[in-house]
Each structure stands twice: as C-alpha cells, then as structure tokens.
C-alpha cells in the first residue's frame, strides 16, 4: 500500500471518529454538566474540544500532503 493511500485511510478514520463524537452515539457519553471546563458545562466543552480536534486533524493532513515543500 503506498503512502498516499495510508494517509487517506488513516485520516478518514480520524475524521469519522470526530464526526461520531459529535453525534449519536459518541455525544451520549458526554451528556452531563459536571465538570465545568473553562466555565462551560461539560457537554458544551465537548463540542469546543472536538472542533479543535478537527482543526488539528486538518493541520496534520495538510502537513502530510504539502509538508516540506512550500
């Protein structure tokens, strides 16, 4: 399997996890108020967290595809 395919499958799985974390069933585990993080209820913070994870994933994918050369 070449590098491009590995990257595609790996990142595909990563973003699938991010998606499932924000809808049923992933979000069900985070459905509570405690503990408050940065003053936000945990369920609210959960979305702040996963949006950040999507951002990090995009950053990694960009580096993998275009890294090294500007």
């Amino acid at each position, binding site marked *: 399997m070449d590098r491009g395919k590995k990257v595609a499958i790996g990142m595909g799985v990563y973003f699938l996890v991010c*998606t499932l974390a924000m809808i*049923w069933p992933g979000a069900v585990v985070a459905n509570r108020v405690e503990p408050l993080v940065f003053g*936000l*209820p945990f*369920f609210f913070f959960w979305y702040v967290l996963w*949006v950040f994870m999507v*951002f990090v994933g*995009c950053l990694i994918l*960009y580096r993998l595809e*275009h890294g090294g050369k500007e």
Partner: protein
Amino acid sequence: MQDWMIVTGITVAYLVAVLLIGLMARNQESSTLEGYVAGGRSIGLFILFFIMGAEIFSAFAFLGGPGWAYGQGAPALYLMAYLGLGLLPWWVLGPKAARLGRKHGYLTQADLISDRFSSKGLSAIIALVSVGAFIPYLTLQITGAGYLFEAATNGNVPFWLGALAAFVIVTVYVYASGLRGIGWTNVVQGIIMVVVAWVLGIAVANRFYGGVGPMFREIQAEAPQYLTMPGAEGMGWAAFSSIILVSAIGFTMWPHLFMKSYGADSEKTIKKTIVLYPLYGYLLIPILIIGFAGILVFQDDPLSNPDNVLPELVVSVADFSPWFIGIMLSGALAAAMSTGSNLAHTASTVLVRDLFVAVFRQDMPESRVVLLTKVFVVVISVFAYVLALFNPASLVGLLLGAYGAVVQFFPLIVAVFFWKRATKAGAFAGLISGSLVMLYFSFLAPPPFEIHAGICGLVVNTVVLVGVSLATKPMPSEHVSKFVEGSKASLQDIDEGASARSDASTA
C-alpha cells in the same frame, strides 16, 4: 442627542464605509462575466477565507443561534458541530471541482453536473432547487437586518426601513463590483463580527451573572434541563444527529462554494481555508453564551419569539451605552449583509446562466448575460425583501429548509467525481425523487423517528440514483472518464498544460 440617534449614526457611517470599500474594489475585470462571477480566478487566501467566513455568519448566527440556546439549550450546539465538520468533504471535492472548472471553463455548479450527464434539463432543475434554497436564506438575512435595526433604535427605525437600507447597499455593491467587491467588504465585516461577538458574549455574562462560570452554575441550580440533551423542549438524539448531518453534508453543496472554488488561485489555497475553517465555529461560543444568559433573565416573562433574545437582552435589559449598541448593530448587520450579498449574487448567476441561458438562449452574447445577471441581483433582492415584509417565519426553520434542499445535490456530485456508471436517467430520477421526499416530509407528514426531512430525501435520492443508473445503458466511457480521471490531474498540471498550448500557438 437621543440614544437611538447615536446608534443610527454609527450604523449609517458603517454602512457608507462598506459601500465605499465595495466600490473601490471595482476593477477592469468586472466587465467580463468570468471576472464578475469568479473574480478573474485569482483570489488569494486572505480574501477567500473571509468570503467563506462571512457567508456562514449570517443574521442567523446573531439571532437564530442565541434563539436556540435560549429556547432549547444544549441542542443549539448542533451549530458548532456542523461548522466544525462542514468543510471536511471539501478537502476531497474542492480541488476536483477547481480542476474541472479550470479545465473546462465552468462558472457554476450546474455547468459541471449538466456537462457530466449531458443534459441541459438537469441544469434547469438544479437551478430551480438552488433558487428554492436561496430565497428563504436571503429572506432570513433581510428579516434579521430589519429586526436588528428596529430593536436597536427602540422602534424609531421601523422594520421595513432598516431592512430596505441594508439591502439597497448590498445590491448596489454586488451590482457594481461582482465577487471582488464582496471579498473586500467581507474582510472588514468578518473582523468586526469576530470582535463584536466576543466582546458582547463576555460583557453579557459579566453584567447579569458576574462571569461565564457563575452563569452556568446558576442555570445548573435553577434550570439544569437546558444544559444537557434533550434540552428544554425534548429534542431526541435522532433529530439532533440528523440536523448535524444534513447541515454538514449540505454545507459543501451550496452553489456559491463551487463558484468560489473556480476562482481559487491554487489547491493549497483551498486546503488552507479548510484547515482554518473549524476555528470559525469558535465564534459561536460567545453567541451561544448570550442565548444561555437569557434563560434566567427572562425566566418570569418568557419572550414570545426566542430569536429576539440577543437584541432584547443587549438593548432593552442590559442598558449598554448607545455607542456600544451601535457597534454591535453594525457587526450583526455585517453578518446579515455579507451573507445576503453572496446569496443575491449567486442566486442571480444560477438563475440566468443555468436556467435561462442554458435552456433557452445558448447563443446569448456575454455582455447581455452580464447585464441580465445584474438585473436579477436586483429582482431577487426585491423579491426576498417583499417576502420578509409579509412572512417573518422562524429563522431556524428557514435555514434548515434551505439545507434540506441543497443536500440533494450530494449524490450527484459524488457520482460526477467517482462513479462512471451513473447515467442521465439515474441523475434525473434521483434528484427529483429526493427533492419530492424532502418536500413531503417537510410540509405534509412528520418524518420517521424525527429524522430531518433532508436526510430522508438524501437516502431515497441515493438509492434511486444507483438503481436507475444500473438499470439503464452506461454513458460513453470516454465521456465519463473526462470527469473521474480528469479530476485527478492537479491544478498545476492543468495550468502548465494550458500555458504550453498557448506558447505553442504564439510561436
């Protein structure tokens, strides 16, 4: 001087500034259609980022978003989820759309689809579905602008006048300068929106509760049902998950996204935009905090329309200085107008090119097409303005209805890039059946398990597209390869190929 005059003065100054920036950006390129529609295909990252950002942050973000947090609580987080996820499919689809657009000179989304399925009729149907999605979306912006003006000036500027002022300006600068005008004004509006949202969110939480943490502690003590699913009105997981999916999938199906990708200067620009995009979701944090703040403030005397929670809270209850309210109003109007200008621009392009020119008058000279597109910018804006005056519907309903319509393009786009076996009959049958199912479950019957009508339509659409395609004769393999294989060649190769050809012809 009375407070409302200060508010109005600041806002008018702002609107004039926006108009000037839009007109200054006018350049030679706007006189050709390609220049007018795709910005001459040389838009840089900085502008592209704000064009796209200003597109989603509409009147909905400042009114409907807090409205949901106030009325329902936790389910409003669907907005953050779909903004985070929405642009991901574009990583794969965007560069492919840009490559084929560059290679074959497409200007609209329907150009691409109707070329692949060799059908002008398909182009007409796509145009109708798109305009059906654009009109409620544009109406939403106008309703929002009018309401904001009215609330911020305590009714001294009536709804009809506020809405009219904002949209005359939008129409004028779209009319005068095309996409580049939209780009530069969106840079300014995008920055103002971000600053206003955060300042307002923190200020509201401090004024009523002494901070964000204490605010949520108080809500937890008095009305904890707002802080977790299923929220105050009992939204189920199926409904919640399916509105996230319909919005996230529909997000990359908006015709203007395709038009802008044809204008992108490189694939890296497209991907850089996607990388930065989830961060836009963070603009919703302060916006939702404002909505949550309303829960206890209006506990004894609930608002009749939850969408009004932000202006009610900021203008009537919090009693901030008129200078601050003026800037807030400018920021919110910025959101409504920047989205409105994009929508008016795309809707008229789609209507003129994909319906009128493609089907009836393929020989129309380009200068006439440009003129007609400009005329329709005015016609569509006026139409949406009249709708806003007579039909101020729920903002969330309007937005989700629009997404339910555009999401029906998804199977077609995927087939264009990946599935050679898809046929013209399959494309027609899928798009029509999907749209009808979506309309049925939107207006005539409640959808099964509260799943969003757009998702129901999408499932039927996909099944019918695959089924009918397999039952009909395949399209010529040379033709379909042009799209599936052709979309794999990088944008750089396409440009080099083109310049090599032009070198050969001059030599």
